[in-house]
């Protein structure tokens, strides 16, 4: 009998939403406890700051340029390599419960396998799908063909209309406001807590684990759709946190002139989005103008986001209790992370887009190795990426990582990281949709974050961003044009390009907006 693996992902969760990472709004004792027993990563970054490319990286252990999902709406080929398939081949039972999003959601023809699978059951007809023998899927809300909306329609039809409508009548991401402040993507949701998707994901995970034999090894990806917008947690839980008491984020300059001055020193698509002139990411509400965000709206969104983080923490606690009751606790590795972050009011912005800054790039990542392996608690400050997860799972299972994986098994401490060359982490952005095109590449090394832009709608390819996190953790001073660090900038840019993987050719087709 080997080690069991529980991969817990959330969606769009900021680093600073966990107590163990210094968060002061949400209470997250379960994850904090895992961090205390295991390894907490201070500098984990995604290889893309949107869902589909990032989730594809987790599954394949490859950069977006390699697996080919260069933006949301580009489906991951069904024959793409998968760490779940590797583990299944090594004898592991495998399941994915919750949000997958390797294929587009807007799919009236039901031609993508994950959407079609949801109409036929939880076991793929072919036996495995992307290496998983069992899939039960959910996303934000109760619309669409996935298992959660179907379950809700069958058992609690009265709750179907309680969620925020993610899209508006033009199939654009909804900008409608709600709550007490009119904040975008906020709605009072009267759904009972026990049937909200967070608890459903935990329930269905437990349901699947109950089918696994005591002596079997298993890999379960439990994937919560929250705290990604919309921010419509069960209203019964919203009172946990009084939004009026929530402090404004450190990255939100309350003075408008100061905020806009910071934005103006960044490449021009920053200010263009802030003013509502250019929306370069479909998932940001096209009709919402960030400059209209009020401090109270930001407080209310932050509070609701924190409530969603607390519900996830409690749901995870239930699953861990069940695992302990099965007698697996000592052999269980838990990895907790998210696919990308959330701007969360930094610079006066929310949601996400082609902005490689801390809110989107610095991720919560906790690895609690199996207690039976006698782990020593540590904090890793060296840079790691989600690309490193798949080889980590292979290492846990005691199997060699396949050559197609491009990351390395996560280090257990800084000395291990130094010995194995964890010096830098890379992130990509490409988008090209209806005439708006943005491309950038970013390297994080030492305490510097350096982004180089390629030609696009708003950029001629000479732009960049350079931040020294050691004295500017909020990334408010763009030093790209600072002559005093020109040599360093050139070195980082050279390092960035030296470590790029070749882009898949021909480029996979964009087949839906998301």
């Amino acid at each position, binding site marked *: 009998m080997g080690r069991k693996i529980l991969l817990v992902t959330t969606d769009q969760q900021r680093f600073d939403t966990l107590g163990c990472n210094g968060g002061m709004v949400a209470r997250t004792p379960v994850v904090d406890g895992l961090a205390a027993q295991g390894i907490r990563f201070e500098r984990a970054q995604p290889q893309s700051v949107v869902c589909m490319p990032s989730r594809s990286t987790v599954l394949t252990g490859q950069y977006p340029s390699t697996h080919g999902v260069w933006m949301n*709406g580009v489906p991951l080929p069904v024959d793409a390599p998968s760490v779940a398939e590797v583990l299944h081949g090594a004898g592991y039972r495998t399941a994915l419960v919750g949000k997958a999003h390797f294929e*587009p959601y*807007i*799919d*009236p*023809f*039901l*031609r993508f396998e994950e*959407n*079609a699978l949801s*109409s036929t059951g939880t076991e793929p007809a072919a036996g495995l799908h992307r290496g998983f023998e069992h899939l039960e899927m959910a996303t934000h809300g109760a619309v669409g*063909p996935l298992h959660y909306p179907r379950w809700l329609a069958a058992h609690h039809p009265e709750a179907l209309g309680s969620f925020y409508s993610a899209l508006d009548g*033009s*199939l*654009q991401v909804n900008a409608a406001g709600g709550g007490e402040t009119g904040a975008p993507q906020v709605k009072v949701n009267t759904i009972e807590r026990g049937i909200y998707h967070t608890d459903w994901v935990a329930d269905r995970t437990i349901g699947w684990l109950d089918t696994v034999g005591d002596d079997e090894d298993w890999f379960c990806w439990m994937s919560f759709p929250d705290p990604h917008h919309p921010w419509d947690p069960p209203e019964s839980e919203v009172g946990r946190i009084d939004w009026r008491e929530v402090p404004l984020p450190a990255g939100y300059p309350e003075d408008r002139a100061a905020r806009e001055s910071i934005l103006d020193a960044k490449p021009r698509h920053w200010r263009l989005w802030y003013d509502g002139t*250019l*929306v370069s990411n*479909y998932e940001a509400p*096209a009709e919402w103008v960030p400059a209209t965000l009020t401090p109270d709206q930001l407080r209310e969104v932050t509070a609701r986001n924190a409530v969603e983080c607390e519900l996830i923490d409690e749901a995870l606690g239930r699953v861990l209790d069940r695992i302990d009751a099965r007698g697996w606790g000592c052999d269980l590795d838990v990895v907790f992370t998210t696919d990308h972050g959330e701007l969360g009011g930094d610079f006066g912005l929310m949601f996400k887009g082609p902005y490689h800054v801390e809110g989107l790039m610095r991720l919560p990542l906790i690895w609690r190795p199996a207690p039976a392996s006698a782990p020593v608690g540590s904090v890793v400050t060296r840079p790691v990426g989600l690309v490193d997860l798949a080889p980590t799972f292979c290492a846990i299972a005691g199997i060699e990582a396949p050559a197609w994986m491009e990351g390395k098994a996560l280090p257990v401490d800084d000395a291990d990281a130094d010995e194995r060359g964890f010096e830098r982490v890379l992130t990509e952005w490409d988008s*090209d*949709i*209806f*005439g*708006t095109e943005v491309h950038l590449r970013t390297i994080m090394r030492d305490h510097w974050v350096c982004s180089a832009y390629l030609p696009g709608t708003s950029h001629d390819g000479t732009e960049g961003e350079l931040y020294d996190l050691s004295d500017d953790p909020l990334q408010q001073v763009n030093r790209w044009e600072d002559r005093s660090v020109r040599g360093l900038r050139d070195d980082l840019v050279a390092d960035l390009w030296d470590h790029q993987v070749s882009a898949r050719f021909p480029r996979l*087709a*964009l*087949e*839906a*907006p998301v």
Partner: protein
Amino acid sequence: MTSRRGSVRHQLRLACEPDRVWDLVGDPTRLAEWFPGVESCTVDGDQRVVTTRSGLPMPETILGVDASLRRFQYRVTSPLFKEHLGTVDVLDLDDGTCLVVYSTDAEPAALALVVGGAARAGLANVAELLGADIVVGSGPPTSSPRSKGAH
């Protein structure tokens, strides 16, 4: 995405006589044979109702079936669309190959992407059904989505 309207075009060059391709794509009753996610379609005069795999009925008006031009045009009249125009052209390249072009103009733009994405897969199905090789490396490249106006 700031565009309300969207235009998406996909094309394939096939090593095949154009009339063979036209016999398939120009026949409005044969859509389910090659367009992915179409369970069935019924044609009554210039009205066609397509039922997708998700069970969604998509009523359409056939605007023209021009055998001499090998051009098929239709509009989806479902309330999902504010406006739609779909065009399938089979162009004879006079070298034993033909170019099949599927163009979608729609509002909202998101649906142009969705229909266009399915059409791209549909063209690959056409090649497979006819046993026609796809000619790569000549002819214009497949276009990327383009905006038709912004709000």
